[in-house]
């Protein structure tokens, strides 16, 4: 059984998204992380557009355009500016060394695939198998948030997680209803904005973006 070409391309993009997630996990520099995030957004927008074209779901074109606008242009631009302004582009070692993180990542991917397998089998959509990849991306981003101690990488991890969710929504269900998608996009936008304010506040108060300073509040 061979799939139609556009679906093969969606599959390829799914694999690419997963690969970018791993690349993010292994990246030590913030600027490179932002670039990878932009690439992830681009792959996401492309796959959304292809699904839109192949299934004739017009509202997905809007989603694709929105993704392109927000995640490929606006947010990376904002992050680049932030990094330059705050001068935080140094090599930072994550809490767990990178090969170990990678191995944990592989285990997470296997876990996600296992979780998704029964669902994929009953699903009707043609891009069903990408659900597992979406779940893996979510888990990997989660791992990235755990292993990073700096504010900006944590935020990028959060946004990458959102990318994974969005990919699940477009590939497995051909997109949520437009209202919901617009709402989600709005929330993400406001969230990034709030974070921007927040990062400046942290910077002012702690004179650093290292969240290691923020370990006062814990149970004694």
């Amino acid at each position, binding site marked *: 059984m061979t799939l139609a070409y556009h679906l093969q391309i969606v599959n390829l993009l799914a694999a690419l998204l997963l690969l970018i997630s791993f690349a993010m996990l292994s990246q030590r520099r913030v600027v490179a992380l932002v670039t990878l995030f932009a690439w992830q957004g681009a792959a996401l927008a492309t796959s959304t557009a292809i699904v839109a074209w192949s299934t004739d*779901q017009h509202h997905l074109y809007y989603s694709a355009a929105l993704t392109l606008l927000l995640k490929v242009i606006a947010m990376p631009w904002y992050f680049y500016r932030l990094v330059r302004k705050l001068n935080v582009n140094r090599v930072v070692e994550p809490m767990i060394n990178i090969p170990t993180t990678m191995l944990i990542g592989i285990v997470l991917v296997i876990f996600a695939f296992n*979780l998704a397998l*029964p*669902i994929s089998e*009953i*699903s*009707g959509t043609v891009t069903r198998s990408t*659900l597992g990849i979406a*779940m893996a991306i*979510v888990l990997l981003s*989660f791992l990235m*948030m755990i292993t990073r101690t700096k*504010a900006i990488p*944590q935020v990028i991890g*959060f946004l990458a*997680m*959102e990318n994974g*969710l969005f990919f*699940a*929504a477009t590939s*497995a*269900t*051909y997109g*949520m*209803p*437009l*209202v*919901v998608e617009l*709402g*989600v996009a*709005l*929330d993400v936008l*406001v*969230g990034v904005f*709030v*974070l921007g*304010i*927040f990062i400046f*506040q*942290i910077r*002012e*108060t*702690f004179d650093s973006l290292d*969240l290691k*300073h*923020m*370990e*006062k*509040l814990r*149970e*004694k």
Partner: protein
Amino acid sequence: MEIFWLLGIPLAGGVFLALWGSRRHAPEINALFSLATLLAAAALTHRIIEDGPMMVGAGWFFIDSFNVFLVALTAFVAFTTALFSRPYMRIEQEHGRLNDKRLRLYHSSYQIFIGAMLLALTTNNMGILWVAMEAATLATVLLVSLYRTPASLEAAWKYFILCGVGIALALFGTILLYFAAEKILGSGGTALLWTHLNGVKAQLEPTVLSLAFVFLLVGYGTKVGLAPLHSWLPDAHAEGPTPVSAVLSGLLLNVALYAVMRSKVLVDGALGTDMAGNLMMGFGLFSVVLAAFMIKRQTDVKRMFAYSSIEHMGLITFAFGMGGAVANFAALLHMTMHSLTKSAIFFAVGHATQKAGTQLMDDIRGLIKTNPTIGWGLMLGTIAILGVPPFGVFASEFLIITTAMHEHPWATPFLLLALGVAFASIFGRVQPMVFGETELPRLPHQPALAPVFLHLGLVLMLGLFIPPYLADWYRQAAELLGG
């Protein structure tokens, strides 16, 4: 029609207060908007009691006895909190902890937060429910860090990241839900409408729904403050301004639990097993026990009551998990009691810490001497939340525990132990705060604690006597949740 007023007023309030800025009477305007919201909520409640459940706005909004009860509660507590915050925030400003700009942010975000919660409660669309929950989080993140102290920033960051991750998982759950629904309801806007989903819930794919529920429970459960995902909650409550702690504890947690319950109804219908209920019971029981032992170790008064919130939310989750008409009834009643009592306690604690200039319990002594109103407010609130009769918390806890004895006897010892530990530690802490010896003179001005006694009066009344129409209303809601 009331629904549009209900949602429009807080939204307009948010915009208006952002523009109004720090001009005179901003706190009064804030309270006025909240009052208008309360009136709209009252009108809506009246209508639902008269006419039964209704759909508004082409199916976008759905109100039944379950959510209208929460709408009324939310609007009420939001109003009293706005009343409380007026003098409280003024004193904070005099102490130099806040400036005009931050106060403007506070007022504006407060209204938007209330609006987002009301939207989450009234919407019929599971996707919009998610969006509104996320909006409520975002509106409160900057409120938690309002004081800009290192600790408050840390708390807010933790709140944002943890709840952000939680809510992202909930989105995944929502996507899975849509994924299952779309096959039956077809793609497009209607497949996420709760009423539609409820109609076809028996046909939804069980595998997908059970996975979806796990994600929804973990996701929204983070916001409910269920252990082990609770670690943001004590920090956010302790470091944010007291009115924010009051609404977080009294309202946001309820709304998050509401989201879980809406999902549970669907999943129960699809699965036909107790899987969802068992999961909730497990999380609930764990939260109750963990929180009870954490309470014992606290030194900060707001943190202690934050853990008490976790304990009570755990108890409510447990009750909902047991299911059945009586348990649901008890859970709904306990939700009401907890919201009213806990916000009252936070009001009293707010004034107490403001006067003492510290949140450390060891440094707060003899409130009854320096200011009897605060002292009595705190003492009565504490007695009420600990479930001493005749307060209403006793009635609901009693119902929950007796039901647990009937249906899940194994859980009762844990519950009783946890409640006992919590009782001993909270009472042991609060007693010297109120009756201890102090050198401090009596305070010159009286605090405005009318909301405290209003809430406690209500709790007392409901403990002694539940009006029949209210009981009917609770019963209807309990049946909606699957009797």
